[in-house]
């Protein structure tokens, strides 16, 4: 009976702390944001960003060629270089191509002065294969001019251009018919933006367990429990921590249930037990509330780093 009385009193006491209410509201607010957010669609389409530093007809023709070959990649032009880099870094585009000023002209004359730059990240696995599609179209678009430059007989230019154009679009040169049937069907998957309710709950559970321990230590330093036996004192310490942890754990579990994250509910429960045991263990090494107050931010920092890295890697 004593235990339940204490449990009730300590619960009332912990709920009188503004910081505790803020912690509970944080979990509820994150879950509300998650449930209110509309579902997003994610396509498995392979997007490729291109930024051309100057206005040129060659670029338009290259895009026309990419259309003609019915490429499976979705090439698109970005308005500026920053946009291209952002798209590649964020993973929106598989890779990006920067076409510098006078690239096509230099490519035609064989001057490697201003190379095209492909930007990718370690997560891009097929950027070289994508570059072949783009490069083969650039070669096709530039090939008449390359021919006239190489032959270097201006009086033959028109005939050379007519000749190469007729061969390029005729059936006398080597081609491979597409081996795949029609266009690749991209899968549109719906997903919800990931809001770290679980990770936040873990951090707050540990924090609240330390808060419970801190309250006990502050009481103890006022000699409130001096007349009690060791066993009684331990029960009070445990009840303090338990009452601090339970509401956060309960709220976290309900929120995860709302979010349909059933497997995480069990691990949240297990973590609550670990947090309680961890706080009791910390109490073995840290006996004074002032010392706990000093190291608390450091403990929280380590926990935040650990939880964040765990979810990232």
């Amino acid at each position, binding site marked *: 009976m004593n235990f339940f009385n204490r449990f009730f009193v300590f619960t009332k006491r912990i709920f009188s702390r503004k910081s505790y209410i803020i912690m509970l509201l944080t979990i509820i607010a994150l879950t509300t944001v998650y449930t209110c957010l509309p579902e997003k669609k994610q396509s498995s389409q392979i997007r490729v960003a291109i930024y051309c530093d100057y206005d040129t007809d060659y670029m338009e023709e290259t895009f026309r060629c990419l259309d003609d070959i019915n490429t499976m990649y979705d090439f698109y032009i970005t308005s500026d270089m920053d946009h291209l880099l952002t798209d590649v870094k964020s993973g929106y585009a598989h890779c990006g191509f920067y076409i510098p000023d006078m690239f096509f002209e230099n490519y035609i004359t064989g001057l490697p002065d201003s190379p*095209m730059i492909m930007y990718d990240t370690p997560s891009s696995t097929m950027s070289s294969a994508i570059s072949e599609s783009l490069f083969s179209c650039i*070669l096709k678009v530039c090939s008449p001019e390359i021919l006239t430059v190489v032959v270097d007989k201006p009086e033959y230019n028109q005939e*050379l251009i007519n000749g190469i154009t007729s061969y390029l679009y005729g059936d006398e040169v080597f081609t491979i018919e597409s081996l795949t049937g029609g266009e690749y069907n991209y899968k549109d998957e719906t997903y919800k933006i990931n809001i770290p309710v679980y990770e936040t709950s873990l951090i707050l559970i540990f924090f609240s367990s330390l808060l419970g321990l801190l309250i006990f230590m502050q009481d103890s330093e006022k000699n409130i429990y001096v007349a009690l036996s060791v066993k009684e004192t331990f029960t009070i310490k445990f009840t303090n921590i338990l009452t601090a942890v339970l509401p956060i754990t309960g709220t976290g579990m309900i929120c995860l249930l709302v979010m349909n994250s059933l497997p995480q509910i069990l691990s949240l429960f297990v973590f609550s037990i670990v947090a309680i045991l961890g706080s009791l263990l910390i109490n073995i090494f840290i006996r004074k509330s002032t010392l706990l107050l000093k190291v608390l931010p450091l403990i929280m920092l380590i926990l935040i780093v650990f939880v964040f890295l765990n979810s990232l890697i």
Partner: protein
Amino acid sequence: MYNNKFFLNLTVANLKRLKNYILPIFISIVIILSICAGAGIIISKNIYKAGVSSKVSIAYYLPDDEDKKANNFGLNIIKEMESTKEVVNLIQVDNIDDGYELLEKGDVLYYIIVPESFFSGIMDSTNPELTILFRDNSQITAYISNELFCSYARYLGVAQAGVYSALDTLRIHETDSDERKSIQKLVNMSYLDRSLNKDAYFDKIEATAEGNHSLLEHYMASAVMLSLFFIAFVMMPYLQGYNKGLITKLNTYKTNSFHIFASNFIASIPAVYVAFVPCFIIISIITKSFNPLGLIWILPSILIISLLINIISSLCNNQFTANMAVLVFTLIIAYVGGGILPQAMLPEAVNDFSTFLPGEYIITNIANSLFGL
């Protein structure tokens, strides 16, 4: 009229008090920097997870004819291409039936049978047909390799079209045979250069850098920013060392909370700077880059960090709340400023918000100070 000399004395007294905090600051900064820099190194290596590419296995059969040497030459060029290495795993079979067997077993996705006189056929424009058999053409890898084959074929086709067109034109104009041969060679070489010598016209850069600095440098700067903010955990007793009695006494000298705030702010600038010095030395040793001018360039960040720590300290009633407020506030400005995840990965709304918080500016300033502009 407020006595400026008293304010000066208060500030000097504050600075003298700082002496007792130097050692804890040094110890704490090393611990906190180790945690934050360690996390930074792990994040910088894992944030762009290396993609796992599934290669397509392709079997091919080359006939033992007079074109074998030329076929092998062409095949070696294709094998050496970066795109082939990335996507395709080529397996040569000694006889036609072995290829069928591999295809049946599912060991290969495609099987290419090169016909006899294939190379000479390309040279004389008869273009003998390649037989390409496939097992399953619905996978994305099949589409990628298909696109790759078509690109290679396009290179070859464009080169052929160029050579044929040049030869036709030169024949029409009855150019002598030696000139024709020399132009044909030149055209061949030029198309070979434009299609296969891509390195000359094409560079590859990893788009992981943040601004002028590599991802690792960016995360090191972010770790230093977090560490300097978290030094507040040590300094909070120092900043909140004025109890009500002391404040009442100071009020009799016309010293109000603003004066105390200003005095604390001035005194915390050297404290944060002292914390930066070991960060500067440690990071310089780790990254093997030494930028002495950085010790001056860092000053704006030191001022901002000191100011923010003091604002938080003056707004909070006790050390516990102030420490927690610093922890939460710092993590927020680090997140919004791209110190935890690269800015490109943050939601657009967060990026818009980053202009109003100093995180991005501080991280850039620290990175410039540590690694140069």
